[in-house]
């Protein structure tokens, strides 16, 4: 992408101004305040599970009913949380992030075409 600098600086978009604009800051805050806590949560939950499996073998081997153990339920729980977080993020991104991102992008594209 060495061609980028000649290409983009020519159209004269002031990226610093865009970045400092209230709308962009809002988009950034909205994205980060959603993904960061969620990332912290799923990593903590995953490592808690790994630590339990590594150091609390007896607890994880306890039977809940029949041959279904605590460990198996926790493991399947990891699948469930992964699927739920995936769907939750997608619906959030589609509803909240995409409209604002598209709006800013279209304005930038218009400005670029006009320049």
């Amino acid at each position: 992408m060495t061609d980028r600098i000649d290409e983009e600086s020519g159209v004269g978009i002031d990226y610093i101004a865009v970045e400092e604009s209230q709308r962009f800051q809002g988009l950034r805050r909205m994205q980060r305040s959603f993904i960061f806590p969620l990332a912290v949560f799923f990593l903590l939950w995953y490592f808690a599970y790994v630590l339990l499996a590594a150091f609390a073998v007896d607890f994880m081997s306890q039977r809940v009913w029949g041959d279904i153990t605590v460990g198996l339920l926790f493991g399947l729980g990891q699948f469930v949380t992964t699927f739920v977080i995936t769907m939750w993020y997608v619906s959030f991104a589609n509803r909240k992030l995409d409209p604002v991102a598209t709006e800013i992008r279209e304005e930038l594209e218009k400005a670029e075409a006009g320049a």
Partner: protein
Amino acid sequence: MNVTPLAAEAVKNDPVLNIAIFAAFVAVTLFIVIRASRNNKTAADYYAAGRSFSGTQNGFAIAGDYLSAASFLGICGAIAVNGYDGFLYSIGFLVAWLVALLLVAEMMRNTGKFTMADVLSFRLKQRPVRMAAAITTLAVCFFYLLAQMSGAGGLVSLLLGIDSKVGQSIVIAIVGVLMIIYVLIGGMKGTTWVQIVKAGLLIAGALAMTVWVLALHGFSLNNLLQDAVANAPQGDKILGPGLKYGANPLDFLSLGMALVLGTAGLPHVLMRFYTVPTAKEARKSVVWAIWLIGGFYLLSLVLGYGAGALVGPEAITKAPGGVNSAAPLLAQALGGPLLMGFISAVAFATILAVVAGLTITAAASFAHDIYSNVIKRGKDGTGESDAAGEVKVARRTVIVIGILAIIGGIGAQGQNIAFLVALAFAIAASANLPTILYSLFWKRFNTRGAVWSMYGGLIVAVALIVISPVFSGSPTAMIPGLDIAIFPLENPGIISIPAGFLLGWIGTVTARTAESRALAAEMEVRSLTGFGAEKAVEH
């Protein structure tokens, strides 16, 4: 209930049938590759399939790329023999995708062109950062490639009844040559189609076998577990953790870190995000990948315990392919030689597809990053980067990598495959992921931080592997005769991943040169809005 091992007597299989099914797969995919290659004109066509795949198609291709022989045969076998600990492995592989979905995929798609280095060097100094990113990319691809190629040799002994070293070497060479043909002719488009076909076959086969296994046990997971316990020498220990990793829990923690943080730094996975037209499609492709991969691992839980119940751990470990033979043996126990032939052909196809994906990634990284931007400095005299020359170099690189992979694969026969894969994941997590996250989310991050983090993470991970028990000092080590194993863990992740993050931070705060404020703002605006992102190629 059938508790007596069905296939315990001997591995009866029909090499001619297996070869015929495999040949049919090669013929079909080759036809698809040739058809797909008609529009390969530009660099964007060759490396990124013209960015024309839909999110759904790319999701299947990602699943095809990710469900390598190690995760398909390896996890089934690990569950069949060690029970729960095999399942633990698959969870790390799945949860890792959340890192890719939430933190990496869309922003990568918006700021890059073909390779990981495009994103990392966006606002930093081109040459040092690209060089470092290309080297870590090549290192990850190389170890991953070696693992797949030596895995191919091992599979052959089981599936085709070829036991001799020469015979296995010939098969490795055939896999290598086929892969070169696919990638040379088809580029990214052909490779992607091979992965889509393979993912479909693999998931269909696994689904059919799972329903079959459950039907034999009255559709009750509990009955299945009961039979697996009755058949296991360790009894009900297979229902809880500890059989495989119990001796060294710290090692398991280290592996867990490398698995969950490595995926989002694997260059051949990252490159797949450039084959779709927009960030929204990149998001959609990760969502498809998560459903397919997660679903597949749930199936392999049933298949693994099913193999334990219907074939028996002892018969599996005694079979020619060892633990890796659990899935094919289960197929034989269920559907006879025809199903086994099908599953074996899918396993071959898996290796072929993964190897092709790795090769095109490595070739793109060499041609686009090292040749075009570091050696040629992105100019051919006219101020334009020379895309045609770059693709020519990429094609030649494919041949070189293919030959290296064949030689390496023959040399690595019988090596510990898990060691090579763990090394690839550990390098990806220590050298690639810190720099990717820092450059996407930390405005102050600078060139020195990137270079320190990438070289530092790479060197620490490789050095720890060299002084670990997988390299020397134990009977199963690479060099059993030597003993320089000072580091007690098999996986370096627990040290090398924090080291990669720490070095990136230290490098950044100690650097005196400030990076361009305007470029940082531009990258941030582009990464979030998708403005100026590479568009799909119109044909």
